[in-house]
């Protein structure tokens, strides 16, 4: 533990209420110079609220925050930034049309009447970019960046203010495995330079690898702290949920039947290599690969959400002609898309209308069927809401995700495509998600799963297909699938780069 003398940030007895929900109650949290403190907890445990209070985005109801020994009452994130507290938020905040340099220095723009010296500006951005290991010209437009570099530019943006304290709110969930290593190297260096780093993440393995200690929140209360030597994923998880977890990502053994989904020489738009494979009834096939390796694009092409350049998709021997989502659904294929806010939900709608989304027939009266089916789905998937007419926004991320899954299952699909189904949801919800998928497998469904969580791939898949740079570079049966092997193939080993 750090002595109070070199505390960069010291928050005591922080409380915050949102309406009837007590988001935080008497939480103490401190960060010393040169340490990485993880903040762990399920969704809704108050991690993000605490991060927002510390970074000036949200006002606390009670408690004190001291930054470098001085009491701080920030009115805005800008005020916090001026004091050396920077945050990398959960959602990307880049302006796509501006240059990389302008994005990096967005918080450092000159005043409205001061001259804008582009050359000096670019030079400054270049130095900051070098610190995070991104080697693109600062004048390049932001949208030309590759996936991993984009995320690192977000980090660079936070570093532009030369913060003493850096808060990362779920920033790692957008990184692929390789890019996470780049991020970790940066964070370690910052720590060694004396910066205090607060790491909020769902990936328990990351906490164990990186953090000097971890503070665990549950339902807005601080339930404990683990020191470096005590850190272990199982221990963290059980503190977060307050109970021992069963191994949530272990697949039920069910008999595997005939191929249900046949992908035949499909060429994804913007690529040239045909891809073929099948998925059998009762089988889980995982598509592994780095972020940006083309897994989501392949999934969306199979589903018909993107038009393939060529090739055929068959479901139970029946070819899906003129691919489109509605034809795939009619043929018994459903997709849980990657981004539930942008692609999965009508955020203006209710729980009920989101479950029923797309199941409507043109002229029939739907309300009673909608009510019946959504009530049944809420019970079956244990979606936590007091009524199905509640706004979808009132649900936590995990329960929103269950709504998307409920909609897919309502169609009684034979093939279920899942794109990062556990992203941004808490451990308990993940466990429930996989339990549900297990039940579906027993009914003979075929599952094609894209996930960036290596533990899910290893725990759940009967077969692993590995993608690298938009090509299928390997297939591993369960017995041969190991973290090292998958990582090797994902990184383009085995001659992935031709």
């Amino acid at each position, binding site marked *: 533990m750090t002595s109070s003398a070199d505390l960069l940030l010291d928050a005591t007895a922080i409380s915050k209420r949102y309406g009837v929900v007590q988001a935080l109650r008497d939480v103490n949290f401190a960060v010393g110079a040169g340490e990485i403190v993880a903040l762990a907890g399920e969704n809704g445990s108050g991690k993000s609220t605490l991060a927002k209070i510390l970074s000036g985005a949200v006002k606390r109801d009670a408690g004190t925050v001291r930054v470098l020994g001085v009491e701080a009452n920030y009115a805005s994130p800008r005020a916090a930034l001026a004091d050396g507290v920077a945050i990398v938020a959960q959602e990307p905040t880049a302006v796509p049309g501006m240059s990389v340099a302008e994005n990096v220095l967005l918080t450092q723009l000159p005043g409205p009447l001061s001259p804008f010296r582009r050359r000096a500006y670019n030079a400054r951005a270049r130095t900051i970019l070098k610190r995070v290991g991104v080697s693109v010209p600062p004048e390049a437009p932001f949208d030309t960046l590759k996936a991993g570099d984009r995320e690192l530019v977000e980090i660079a943006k936070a570093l532009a203010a030369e913060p003493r304290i850096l808060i990362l709110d779920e920033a790692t969930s957008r990184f692929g495995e390789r890019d996470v290593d780049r991020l970790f190297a940066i964070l370690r260096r910052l720590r060694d330079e004396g910066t205090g780093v607060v790491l909020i993440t769902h990936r328990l393995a990351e906490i164990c690898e990186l953090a000097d200690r971890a503070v665990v929140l549950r339902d807005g209360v601080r339930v404990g702290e683990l020191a470096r030597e005590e850190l272990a994923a199982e221990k963290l998880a059980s503190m977060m949920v307050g109970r021992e977890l069963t191994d949530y990502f272990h697949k039920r053994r069910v008999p595997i039947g005939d191929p249900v989904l046949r992908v035949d020489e499909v060429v994804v738009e913007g690529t040239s290599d045909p891809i073929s494979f099948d998925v059998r009834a009762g089988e889980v096939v995982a598509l592994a690969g780095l972020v940006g390796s083309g897994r989501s694009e392949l999934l969306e092409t199979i589903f018909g959400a993107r038009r393939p350049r060529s090739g055929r998709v068959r479901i139970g021997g029946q070819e899906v002609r003129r691919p489109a*989502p509605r034809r*795939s659904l009619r043929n018994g294929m459903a997709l849980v898309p990657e981004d539930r806010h942008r692609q*999965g939900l*009508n955020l203006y709608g209710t729980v009920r209308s989101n479950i029923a989304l*797309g*199941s*409507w027939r043109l002229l029939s009266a739907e309300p009673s069927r909608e009510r019946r089916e959504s009530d049944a789905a809420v019970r079956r998937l244990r979606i936590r809401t007091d*009524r199905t007419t509640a706004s979808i926004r009132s649900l936590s991320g995990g329960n929103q995700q269950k709504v998307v899954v409920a*909609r897919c299952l309502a169609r009684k699909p034979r093939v279920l495509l899942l794109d990062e189904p556990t992203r941004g949801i808490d451990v308990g919800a993940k466990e429930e998600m996989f339990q549900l998928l297990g039940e579906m497998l027993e009914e003979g469904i075929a599952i094609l799963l894209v996930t960036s969580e290596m533990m899910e791939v290893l725990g759940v898949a009967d077969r692993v297909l590995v993608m690298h740079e938009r090509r299928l570079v390997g297939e591993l049966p369960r017995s041969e699938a190991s973290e090292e092997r998958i990582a090797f193939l994902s990184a383009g080993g085995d001659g992935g780069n031709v």
Partner: protein
Amino acid sequence: MSELSSGALAARRFWEALLSYLGVLTVLLALIAFFSINQSRFFTLANFWNVLDGSSVLLIVSVGLTFTMLCGGFDLSLSGVLALGGVVLWVLLSHGVPLFLAIILVILGGTLIGAVVTGYPIAYLDLPFFVVTLGVLVAARGLASVITSGEVEGLYEQETLRKIGNGRIGDVTYPVIIALVVLLLAIVVTRYTGYGRMIYAVGGNPEAARLAGINVRLVRLSTYAISASLCAFAGVIETARLAAASPDADQGIEFSAAAAVLLGGTSFVGGIGSMLGTFLGVMFIGVLKNGLIISSISVYWQGVITGVVLFASVLIDRFRRRRST
């Protein structure tokens, strides 16, 4: 998870529904109270039907606009299609086409314009609705002027047509009955059919709707077809009321309609709103106009007051939403 009794749930839902109309309902009631106190002739049943009669054409086009706006679009072409509808009706009648066939042809023609000329480029070619509907507005009105050489064409000899526009059962005129039937149908379609749910879903999140298997392009196109068909129909009603077809009929009604729809709580970006709200918005404009006339105040104040109230209601709504989240 708390189990609420069905009675308590129904009451809660009722209050929530009432709350969503709170803004427009408050100003409407305030307006009615104001005119009632100041003018003895205002708060009478006869005048109520009178207000509705004066608002019947606006109500029909506003219902059409609500469809496009719920779906996340907008239709600037309302008055153009309306005027063209009236003029085409005159052409058909002057060529001896029987009245009811002519009316049906006008409505079908409007639907066709909405589907092919407006809806197709917007929904299938992804052209911006602002450009397309503005083009249709100008072109349709221009075409109407070309046909009549800019003249107003009298249809006084068409007795049945005049009856449709001016006939009455007691104090209630036929246009009021027609407009209320259109409103009722629109309420049923938006609230109780699968098609209605699709409109809200496409307006709320087109990408999610597409991935859920909804034919987003077709739904979008259909809302422009509905809007244009209702405008053509409104053109018939307006022509019947005036017993004349004018290429300048109801100029600028798209802006009154937009004000009514927005006042009624429909979101400019789609996915939120209701036909009932649109009805209240139309009533607000109708009551305002009627009250000003009865009070012998310049009727031009109507625009100023509508603008201010629209602005205020959006502000109130923003506050309400911020508090509830």
